Each structure stands twice: as structure tokens, then as C-alpha cells.
């Protein structure tokens, strides 16, 4: 045990002496949270809407007012022809345009049917889709109101009331906080562990530790300790940031969340060890981590693209990525406030993966020594 302590102390010294690495490791989660939170937001805020239509028509005026009052939308001006919208998009003066049909108001009153065209800037499809659905919602609710007031009880019109549970404000931070957490923990644990082991392989000092009476397994575990500590700090800093800056609540049990994080961290550490076994230089290790871990995790774990909308075969690929299961657990526990019972499936899968990875990596590390 004393031997283990001595070698763990050494590992802590290594990373605390390496100012640059420690700085990156501590600052990276903060930067990522802030970046995703403010810069890479998929929310629609203050979308600029131009409109085209007959301002003398009271119904058009009402609808335009209603759009302007919506807190996500604001009217920036009137255009003469629908084709002018393109010019505005090119000059980046508007994000969408609404074009009311001729005789909008009178058609609406007489027949209850009329037309309004929504033109969006499709160069940013996600935002365009969201703006379009906001606009459609506002216009149709106006039409429904008019329909009811004009036709009395005769026409039954139905507007579905949409309520977004757990995330009433549609904040994208609810999606990316779990994602960033998964990504950061994985990066810290697997990349840094792999690099630190490979570095000792490169300098030849690993041999030195291996000829000492400390068992190889304990050497590896002692190398993992600082990263375990570092990931605990990152876990805490992400939670604090998301709570106080992003206002993402922790609705479920913090203990359960921490436990899931621990299981995930173990699987990442094991991955790091595995990478260190197969790579002979720090550069290779970094490359494997970047291309083999970070990219697939970004793409397949559901951080950016929802797994449900992937082709079946890619969904299978996504199933073998530990981060996907961790992120599901975090979403369930943190945002939905679920308990153990609802995440038991994901947690078991994650634990199974961690155990398997650990067994495989330790085995290959030992074989490599022979």
C-alpha cells in the first residue's frame, strides 16, 4: 500500500507540475459549457421577421402585432413583394418573412380559409425550421381566434396545446449540459490517462516502475488516480456552472448522478489504458483518442444528432458508445428527476461496458508486458 501511495503521489506531482495541461483540463469544461451555452445555441432568440401584405387590412395588422409581441420574434420591416425577402436574407437583415395573401382578412372572415406564406432562410435549416414553426403557431392561433369570434360556436376549431415537460422554455442547455459532461469526463479520463502512460513508455521510465516490486496493476491504478480526481473536480464545476449560469436544475438524486459518473469514468479510464497499450507514441495516442473516441462520441452519443433519427445500422453503432448511455442517464436523472428504477437499464449497460473494458484493457496490458 505504501508503494502504491508513493507512486500515486508521483502521478499527482506530474500533472500539477504540468501547468499547461492542468490549465486546459480545468478550463476546458468551463469554456465548453459557455461556448455551447451562448455561442452554439440552437434556440431562437429575437428572430427578425419581415412581412409583406396589405397594411390597411385589420387582420393583417393584428397578426403582425401578434408576431411582434411574441418574445422570440420581432418585426423588422415591411417588404413590397415576397421576392424582396431574398434581398433581406442576403444582407442579413431578416431571418424570415411572412407574406399575407391578398384579401387576407376578408377571405378569413367569409370562408375561414386564407393563405399566408412563410419564407425562411434555409441556409441554417435548424433555426429556419424553428422560426417557421413559431411563426406558423402565432399565425394559426390568430386565425383560430378570428374564426371563433366570427363564426361563434358553429365552427369547431381545435388547436393542440403543446406543453414541453421538463424544459418548458425549450432551452438547448438542457440537451448540451449532459452532453458536455459526457464528453469532458471521457476526454479527461481516457485521453490523459493514455497519454500519461504512453509518455512513460516513450521515455523508458515505465520499465523502471515495472522492475520495481510494485505490481503492474497498481502502477496503472496509481496513474489513473489523478485523472479520477480531476474528473471529480470537472464534474462538480460542470454541475455548478450549469446550475448557476445555465439555470439547468438537478432534479434527481445527486448521489445517483455521481454514481453514474463514476461508472462512466471507470469505463473511460479503461479505454485510456487500452489505447495506451496499442499506441507507441503520444502522438498516436492523441490521434486515436481524437478520431477514435471524441469524434464518434460527438456524432453518435446524441449530443448533436438525436440517435433516434439515425439509420438503424448507425443506431447499433451508437449503442456501443458508453457516452450515449451516460448522457441518457444524466438527462433522466438531472432533468427529468428520475430515480434509480428508471435508469437501471442504462446503468447496467454502462456498468457492463466498464467491467468489460476494464477486463480487456488490464488483460492486454499484462500480455503486452510478457
Amino acid at each position, binding site marked *: 500500500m505504501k*508503494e502504491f501511495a*508513493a507512486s500515486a503521489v508521483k502521478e499527482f*506531482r506530474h500533472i500539477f507540475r504540468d501547468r499547461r495541461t492542468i490549465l486546459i483540463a480545468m478550463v476546458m469544461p468551463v469554456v465548453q459549457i459557455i461556448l455551447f451555452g451562448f455561442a452554439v445555441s440552437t434556440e431562437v432568440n429575437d428572430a427578425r421577421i419581415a412581412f409583406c401584405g396589405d397594411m390597411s387590412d385589420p387582420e393583417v395588422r393584428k397578426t403582425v402585432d401578434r408576431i411582434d409581441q411574441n418574445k422570440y420574434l420581432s418585426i423588422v420591416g415591411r417588404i413590397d413583394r415576397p421576392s424582396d425577402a431574398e434581398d433581406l436574407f442576403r444582407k442579413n437583415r431578416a431571418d424570415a418573412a411572412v407574406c399575407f395573401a391578398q384579401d387576407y382578412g376578408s377571405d378569413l372572415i367569409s370562408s375561414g380559409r386564407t393563405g399566408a406564406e412563410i419564407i425562411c432562410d434555409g441556409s441554417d435549416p435548424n433555426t429556419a425550421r424553428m422560426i417557421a414553426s413559431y411563426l406558423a403557431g402565432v399565425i394559426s392561433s390568430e386565425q383560430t381566434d378570428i374564426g371563433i369570434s366570427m363564426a361563434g360556436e358553429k365552427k369547431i376549431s381545435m388547436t393542440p396545446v403543446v406543453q414541453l415537460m421538463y424544459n418548458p422554455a425549450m432551452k438547448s442547455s438542457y440537451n448540451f449540459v449532459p452532453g458536455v459532461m459526457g464528453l469532458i469526463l471521457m476526454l479527461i479520463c481516457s485521453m490523459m490517462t493514455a497519454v500519461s502512460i504512453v509518455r512513460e513508455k516513450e521515455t523508458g521510465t515505465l520499465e*523502471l516502475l515495472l*522492475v520495481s516490486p510494485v505490481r503492474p496493476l497498481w502502477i496503472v491504478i496509481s496513474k489513473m488516480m489523478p485523472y479520477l480526481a480531476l474528473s471529480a473536480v470537472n464534474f462538480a464545476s460542470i454541475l455548478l456552472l450549469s446550475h448557476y449560469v445555465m439555470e439547468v436544475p438537478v432534479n434527481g438524486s445527486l448521489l445517483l448522478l455521481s454514481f453514474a459518473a463514476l461508472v462512466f469514468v471507470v469505463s473511460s479510464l479503461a479505454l485510456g489504458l487500452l489505447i495506451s497499450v496499442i499506441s507507441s507514441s503520444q502522438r498516436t495516442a492523441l490521434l486515436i483518442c481524437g478520431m477514435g473516441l471524441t469524434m464518434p462520441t460527438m456524432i453518435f452519443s446524441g449530443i448533436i444528432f438525436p440517435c433516434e433519427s439515425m439509420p438503424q445500422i448507425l443506431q447499433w453503432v451508437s449503442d456501443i458508445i458508453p457516452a450515449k448511455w451516460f448522457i441518457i442517464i444524466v438527462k433522466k436523472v438531472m432533468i427529468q428527476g428520475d430515480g434509480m428504477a428508471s435508469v437501471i437499464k442504462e446503468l447496467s449497460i454502462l456498468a457492463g461496458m466498464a467491467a468489460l473494458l476494464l477486463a480487456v484493457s488490464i488483460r492486454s496490458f499484462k500480455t503486452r508486458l510478457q
Partner: protein
Amino acid sequence: MEENVITIWNLTKKFGNFTAVDNISFDVRKGEIFGFLGANGAGKTTAMRILCGLSRPTSGEGTVAGYDINTGQEKIKRHIGYMSQKFSLYPDLTVRENIRLFGGIYGLKDREIRVKTDAMLGMLGMQSEKDKFAGDLPLGWKQKLAFSIALIHGPEIIFLDEPTGGVDPETRRRFWEMIYDTAEKGVTVFVTTHYMDEAEYCDRVSVMVDGKIAAMDSPAGLKSGYHARNMDEVFRIIAGRAEREE
């Protein structure tokens, strides 16, 4: 009769179809400086790894410091010291922290480590450098420090893997003085080297070619046996018969 600290019979190590070490046998006596020579790829590193308990032989038997190379690897590790050509220090740890680390992983008690640290710093004349990073020390000092650290737990045998690679002749000479002092205290020195002038300093030398020990004798014996003026010539005659590519 002199006591053998390393005894090896018919040691073989194969990696797949490749036989790195091919049926070698030798003894090393206590307090001897044993030179283990061979071109790159001749199998000396593999053989040395087995002796250090880092790797298991495919077949063959032997004892190192009285423990079996097949079953007593952990015990062997406690009784040997090891120093490689990289000087075996962590550049981002201070001199004192390096000493502490190796004292710690060899299971020395805190008090022992303190005593040894003071003694070692005094002997090396490095008291004022104790809080400097090992990476900032001059090469010769690093080497002396690494050698002393490899001896911190009082091993019976010390393995030196090309300990003087890349060092100037003067530093090398002083390093060999340390080796002599150590051997005089009864510690066996097992050294691999590329420098043939160093081979002259050894009590006995073995030359590995293609996984086999091609020659083994005292430097004087080898020179007269091969009618050579110096060890360099001896080595060229023996290693020139190699068939294996590097």
C-alpha cells in the same frame, strides 16, 4: 568456492516463430562486474528483461539473487536494482522527490528514506541541489544520482542497461569508478554496453550473437583467444558472424 548470484540454464525466449534468446546458459559470481555485449537485436535486452523479472522465459530455468526466474519474479524485483540509458529519473520531479519516489516504491519506511536521502545527497555532494528539478541537472550528475537511486534498497545485483549512452568519456570514466566502488562492496554489476573500451573494465564479458552466447571469458582471455589487440576487434570478429538482420 565462489557464490553464484545469477545462474541460467538453457534459457529460451520465443516471440511467435522468432527465437530472440536461443538456449543460453551462464553464471555470474557475487561481486563480479559482468559485461553483457551484443549488437542491436542480438537478444540481450530480451535476456536482461527475463533476468529482471519483467518477462517470463519460454523455456529454461535459472535463479537470480536466489529466486527462481519462472516463479519468483516479484521476489527478484525486490533484490535487484535497475538503471537504463535514460538515467531513470523523472525530470519534472526534484532530486529529493525522485529519491523519495524510488524509496517509496521499493517499500522503504519514511525514516529510512530520510536517512538515505541525507546520506546520498552528502555522498554525491548535491545538498544544495536537492530541490532542483532532476531535468535541470547536468548529465553527469543525473547519471550519478540515478545510479545511487537504483541502489537505494540495497540490492544484491544491479542491472545497468547501456548506462553511459551519450555521455562524454570523462563522465563515463567517473561513472565506472562508481561501478567499481559498488562491486567492491559485494554488489554484483550486470552491465550492457555499446562501448568496447568499457568492456575492458569488466571482470568477465559475454557476447551474444543471434540469440546465442557466442563467447564468454575475461577481456584478457578473449583478446588472446581471438588474437586481437583490443575488445573492439574481438567484438567485430565475433559479431561479424551474425546472420540475423538488426
